[in-house]
């Protein structure tokens, strides 16, 4: 017993490895997404401090969306969004700040928060559409602008702004005839 303990203390006491006294980390390595994912996630590794967006594919559709691009040209929204709800106004202001700071994923999430409060606010949908256009997610931008138009109800300025946005998205997608049609409606 004595020998065993003695030897133990030799080994513990003599080896002056660099680990000695170092804090024992509890945190593991960064998770890695499954390599066999359905192509829904765009990144293979997560850069520290940056978030990524993934399209959920599961039950309904196998459609995928391009990656969230964080550095994009800034574009002021064509039509100011508004609301009578002070919570929505606060979120809109936050989203604007986030967009200016280049935090596009954050701005999108903030607009989604606002949309949960006012799901039928056509101008919020338009803001989200213009954000996606800035990110060069043209198909999504056009669909969001369509959605905005479906709720716009006689808001002529907004409808025209949505058509302009759709026209630009379609041009970027190479759908020139459809883009022309959208420009005509934007007038």
């Amino acid at each position, binding site marked *: 017993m004595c020998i065993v303990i003695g030897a133990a203390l030799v080994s513990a006491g003599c080896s002056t490895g660099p680990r*000695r006294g170092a804090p024992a980390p509890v945190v593991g390595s960064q998770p890695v*997404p499954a390599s066999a994912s359905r192509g829904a996630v765009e990144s293979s590794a997560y850069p520290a401090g940056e978030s990524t*967006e993934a399209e959920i594919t599961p039950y309904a559709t196998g459609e995928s969306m391009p990656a969230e691009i964080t550095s994009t040209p800034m574009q002021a929204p064509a039509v100011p969004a508004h609301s009578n709800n002070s919570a929505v106004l606060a979120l809109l202001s936050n989203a604007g700040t986030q967009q200016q700071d280049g935090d596009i994923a954050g701005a999108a999430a903030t607009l989604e928060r606002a949309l949960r409060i006012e799901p039928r606010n056509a101008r919020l949908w338009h803001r989200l559409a213009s954000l996606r256009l800035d990110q060069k997610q043209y198909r999504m931008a056009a669909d969001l602008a369509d959605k905005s138009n479906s709720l716009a109800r006689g808001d002529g300025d907004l409808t025209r702004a949505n058509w302009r946005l759709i026209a630009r998205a379609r041009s970027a997608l190479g759908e020139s005839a459809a883009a022309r049609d959208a420009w005509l409606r934007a007038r």
Partner: protein
Amino acid sequence: MARKSTRPAGRSSTRKNTARPARGAGGRKRGGAGKRSGYRWSTRLLALTLLFSLITGVYLLYLDHQVQVKFDGKRWSIPARVYARPLELYAGARIGPEQFIEELNRLGYRKVRHPEAQASWSRNNSRFLVRTRPFTFWDGAEPGRYLDLRFEGDRLAGLFDAGGAPQALVRLEAPEIGSIYPSHNEDRLLISRDQLPALLVQGLVAVEDRSFYSHHGVDPKAILRALLANVRAGELVQGGSTLTQQLIKNLYLSRERTLWRKLNEAVMALMLDARYGKDEILEAYANEIYLGQDGSRAIHGFGLASRFYFNRPLVELDLPRLALLVGMIRGPSLYDPRRHPERAKKRRDLVLEMMRQQGAISERQKQQAVDSPLGIGNPGSGGEVRYPAFLSLVRRQLHNDYREEDLTSEGLRIFTTLDPWVQEQSEKALAGRLFQLEKNHRLPAGKLQGAAVVAATGSGEVLAVVSGRNADFSGFNRALDAVRPIGSLIKPVVYLAALMQPRRYTLTTRIEDAPVNLKLAGGKRWTPDNYDRKSHGSVTLFQSLTHSYNLATVNLGLDLGLDAVTGLLTDLGITRKVEVVPALLLGALSLSPLEVTQLYQTLAAGGFRSPLRAIREVQAQDGSALQRYPLTVRQSVDQGPVYLVNRNLQEVVSTGTGRGLSAFLPADLHLAGKTGTTDELRDSWFAGFDNDRVAVVWVGRDDNSPAGLTGSQGAMQVWGDLMRRLKPDPLNLPEPASVDSVWVDADSGLLADEHCANAALIPYLKGSAPVTASSCVSRSGQGIGDFIRGFFE
């Protein structure tokens, strides 16, 4: 750590160790003079001693390596924690006091006379004062706040801070709804040393290891003391293990009770103590310790135990609760406060007494704690998996993007779309109504089953998933996996396919509700019938869908072609392979309630499909945002025809097969919905929506035998109860620019005006409205003006 390097233990043992070969050499000298055999003997002894030392040395190095690898590396797999949506508070929010109190209870906030501490609240009629906990969301931290809330009816009318300044928007913390723990079923919630309350540490030391701060990993005095006590008692009443030894046992060794294991434990405890500081050992101990069982899930560590037993974080526990946790270490099931409250209280009081003896607490503190109740949270609360049906949906969605081992080991935080309020109302509606239905229809008790899904129309966020009448049971998930024929729920798709061809079909186009006799591929004949076994002759599309006529629908569908219907199903979000047979037109298509929800989401959103989502964000253990699952929409069907179908679905509820909903919900909500019934009443369905939520209910039996209920007798009753509980927002369908609503004579399908007896305002796609005026218009003599007015309305 400095204390460690200057400790004499290592050096003194070094001396001891080097002395050994010297003794051996001495022996050789004494016995080696001339006697060969003696010389050989001593050589052998020396060799044996050396060999033994070598083996021991290697073995000890191995043990030391084990100690370090496990302690320095990732000690535990940390399960992903799953959160429901945070409640958003703002003036005007549709939240009533009842819902608000439920949320506070869910979060483990305490009702007090005046909120002084974090996570407490008080109420004075419709005014609430709340001190919130801080919470780190994926997009930033929400600080703890002191809030003043005023409710008016079912709305939050005002939101202020305690100083009276209006607050635009405050997020309460996200309620935790479960964890994704690995197959060995260990669950834990990591805490750091500085999160360990001082009283907890004092209790631990007082009860488990009095000389923790002074011994070197093993406490010989404690071993002696235990030995004496055990001999005196004639049985094992006391263990002499230090906290360090207990940690070694739990972290590294098997549970067997052998001397060899005891020896290893002691050696490794000395090594651990030599290498690491007391605080590190204490932190590891606090996270490792086993403290209870929740079904197959093992509760490890004080962090999780605090949530599990008290539904609140460790830092918020008072002395009696901390003492209870300390007491449970000796026997988590023996002293389980839920199963054996009296035994647990006795044990807790003993801990308190020991703490007093050690001077950790005063006599007064002890007495107060002894006088207080155990303070255990409800069995239904406390971090265990509360909504297994929804969580299995979350897991499936996560498995598209993450490996199982990442989910069970990396400490991810998963923010989901679950609305616990909607979930609980849905569970109550399903369980309550199924019980009622069995009673009212004299059905065998307990056989009827059901499922429900509720989603947000505009975003596709899944708000609730109910998988059966016992929602806590995590067995077969009917909402996701009961794939059943959908019956007449398919009809809106058939009519939508027709209305997408405005030159051929409008809502007032007449079709024949006449017998069908089809020869099928196998030579069989198919002769469907109406539910009332009558033919209704020539009917409009509008009437046919409203009353769910089978024969007219089959005739319409055959005329359109089955491909038109199957193609549309895909556009509406159905990915399952569809068998293209005529019976498809009457719902010989099997889908899960979740898939039906996707189908009706696209309809409810005016043709804008949003894939159903159960997750919003995933956050890494270090708090950084990993991933978002953003809101997406895809305009998959033209708004115009969808609008016509939705108007028709409102008619279903106001005058058609869904009119029985008036027993639950007032007509001025203008809800839209559709019943579904399958052969021999095996499946009873209802799908419908209000202004911002779509809900689907299925009722049937697990053995697929007839349930004895039509869609309106069964599922619709659940749906009505469910929606009434959710206080629906009136459905307001925005009329697309491509649609004109026109007054039409319901009998002739010709233009009318609103003064005509049978006039109805019918929506048409532009250019498809009737142009011939009915005789009613000419008779009233105001036809042309109204005609123009109607056309442009």
